């Protein structure tokens, strides 16, 4: 028998919810986050695994379902060793049916469990479009608050390196347009752990966007448990020449650009949004009040992108503070190219960010 009451992390609290049997657990948000500095260096994929494993140990309703997650230890080795620890009832290999296991997961969430659904690639979530865009985000709303859907969908997003256009989707622009989902997109191992733990506790559906190209990235990740709140950007560099806004993998290019620009005496503010839904526009506006210039870096296509949304809100709320039109650095407006050098030219890069900042401050 599964206990339906949500197990609460230390210092957290149980929140009642009419549509969620056993309520949901809220972490102790007053607790400060542990330091990002340290020498416990692990890979991005290990940070993800740690987050899932910790939550699975706490809450036996949490399970992982997807293609190749169990016997194979995950197509990208995120779930390495988890079948051994948690067994086949909780680490579940699925037939190749994305719409099938997305829908199954949605129903399991409605019925009180806490599914984590792995898409081998977010590109393949498109064959599950109706479940994840038309069912999951609207379940609570359309049932008049009766059926909740606390589910996490996670997997690789963005061009993974010469996988061709149908296998290189950057889904944030598309999915951010749908009301009813939360979208988290970590840029580093530290955030990967803290954001994924929050996603699993969250009472609503969360799309969690990882990147194949970052899974091997190594950095300090605290051993302790911590939860990074959604909707709070991290300020990773401070400067008053220009604001760089980004999320996910390109944040790393922004940091490289910031370091290079600092050498030229151009100090920029770098904001890592961490979550796209909710989006911490307050931090962006506050930064622009000091810098008066902004470059938004987004690995998605430009038209109707998250960058477009950020720029729109800047215009709406911070127009008077601007000394230069907002600049976007997106991918080119073409399907993801297959050829290596074309793919590289298509993606936002450190060089393009540097050029954009120079243009904006120049």
């Amino acid at each position, binding site marked *: 028998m599964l206990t339906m009451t949500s197990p609460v992390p230390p210092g957290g609290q149980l929140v009642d919810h009419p549509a969620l049997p056993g309520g949901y657990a809220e972490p102790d948000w007053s607790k400060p986050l542990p330091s990002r500095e340290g020498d416990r260096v692990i890979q991005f994929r290990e940070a993800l695994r740690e987050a899932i494993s910790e939550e699975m140990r706490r809450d036996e309703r949490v399970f992982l379902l997807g*293609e*190749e997650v169990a*016997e*194979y230890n995950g*197509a990208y080795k995120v779930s390495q060793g988890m079948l051994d620890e948690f067994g086949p009832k909780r680490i579940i*290999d699925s*037939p*190749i*049916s*994305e*719409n*099938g296991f997305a829908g199954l997961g949605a129903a399991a969430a409605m019925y009180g469990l806490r599914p984590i659904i792995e898409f081998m690639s977010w*590109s*393949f979530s*498109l*064959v599950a479009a109706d479940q994840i865009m038309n069912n999951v985000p609207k379940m609570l709303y359309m049932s008049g608050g009766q059926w909740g859907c606390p589910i996490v969908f996670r997997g690789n997003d963005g061009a993974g390196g*010469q*996988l*061709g256009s*149908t*296998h290189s989707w950057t889904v944030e622009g598309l999915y951010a347009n749908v009301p009813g989902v939360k979208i988290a997109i970590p840029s580093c191992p530290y955030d990967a752990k803290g954001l994924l733990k929050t996603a699993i506790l969250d009472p609503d559906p969360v799309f969690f966007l990882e990147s194949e190209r970052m899974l091997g990235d190594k950095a300090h990740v605290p051993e302790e448990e911590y939860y990074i709140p959604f909707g709070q950007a991290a300020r990773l560099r401070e400067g008053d020449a220009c604001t760089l806004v980004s999320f996910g993998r390109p944040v790393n290019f922004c940091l490289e650009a910031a370091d290079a620009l600092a050498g030229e005496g151009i100090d920029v503010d770098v904001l890592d949004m961490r979550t796209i839904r909710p989006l911490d526009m307050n931090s962006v506006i506050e930064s622009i009040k000091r810098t008066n210039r902004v470059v938004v870096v987004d690995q998605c296509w*430009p*038209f109707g992108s998250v960058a477009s949304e950020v720029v729109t809100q800047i215009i709406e709320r911070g127009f008077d503070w601007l000394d*230069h*039109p907002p*600049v*976007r*650095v*997106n*991918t*080119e*407006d*073409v*399907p993801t*190219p*297959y*050829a*290596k*050098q*074309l793919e590289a*030219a*298509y993606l*936002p890069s450190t*060089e*393009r960010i*540097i*050029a*954009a*900042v*120079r*243009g*904006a401050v*120049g």
Partner: protein
Amino acid sequence: MPKKVVYKAQIEHLQILDEEGKLDTKLAKDTLDDEQVVHLYEQMSITRHYDEVAFKLQRSGRMGTYPQNKGQEANAAASALALRKGWDWLVPCYRENTALFMHGLPMHYVLLHWMGDERGNQIPEGVNITPLSIPIGTHMLHATGIAWAAKLRAEDRVVATYFGDGATSEGDFHGAMNFASVMQAPVLFYCQNNQWAISVPREIQMNSETVAQKAFAYGMPTIQIDGNDIFAVYKATKDAVDRARDGGGPSFIEAVTYRLADHTTADDAKRYRDPEEVEAWRAKDPLIRTRKYMESKGLWDDTKQTELQERAEKIVAEVVRTAEGIEKPTPADFFNHMFAELPHELERQRDTMHTSSLCQNPEQAGLRAGLERV
């Protein structure tokens, strides 16, 4: 009132050439003649060598991911022979290289594709093959759609689509099957049941005894065959193709076969497959049994084998040279095939490059100036 049986079904398994190279001459009647057998053997051998070379190219960093066809060649080869080249359509997955080559796709195209060049999918005029589909299962609907369109156009074309055992779990498979049946579209669903979908064995993929029985739900003629037997593959395909061409609608073939190599070059099948299972299937290799048969009939000998090996090496070496000799695309090529006529906003993007923003004026944004200083 007594209950009555309203539906009854059974699945036949067809094997004509066994593992030892022995032929059931009665079943083999009106199938392949000697010349065709030799031709198929040569085609399969050349793609086997092609696989080996592609694998080495990948290992030495000259190619991206590559899925070997090794062990499954009889399916592609013998079914392709039963289809009309340049008239019927192939809607493939990624383990049918022999069929693609036999239907006129220049051999360097497949290499070019896996080397990461879009142009490997730019099928030449007159070759009736659709581009490789990466999302599993979505192409089967296209097969039904093309077959249906051909029927509406009153052309007596047949469409053959290939897919794996794993692909039958996708909803698109069931949609394609139902539409084909309802519309009586001239399409052949050819399932290469190689027992594995990456690390997931067939028993976990589905709980049905056979794949073939899925077709019953769609009222479709269906059969299970030995997919490593060129005679069985040819016969079953020919029957299905003739039926479709005569207005008899779709058919289903479950070809039981085995992937002797890893799923792709990114995989290591040793981690999840029992070596004994692999060994058992090695003995059922279509090349081995076809050769045994040819030798027993005096159609083949060691000299011919050596000649063929040399020929295969020459052909494939030339193919690699061609693929590697093609000039690399440049970033402005992004825009080549997006629209019939490039919209103005994209024209500007092509001409300025690196502006990223659709509506942004690069001069105003200072981007040109910024770039020139990089």
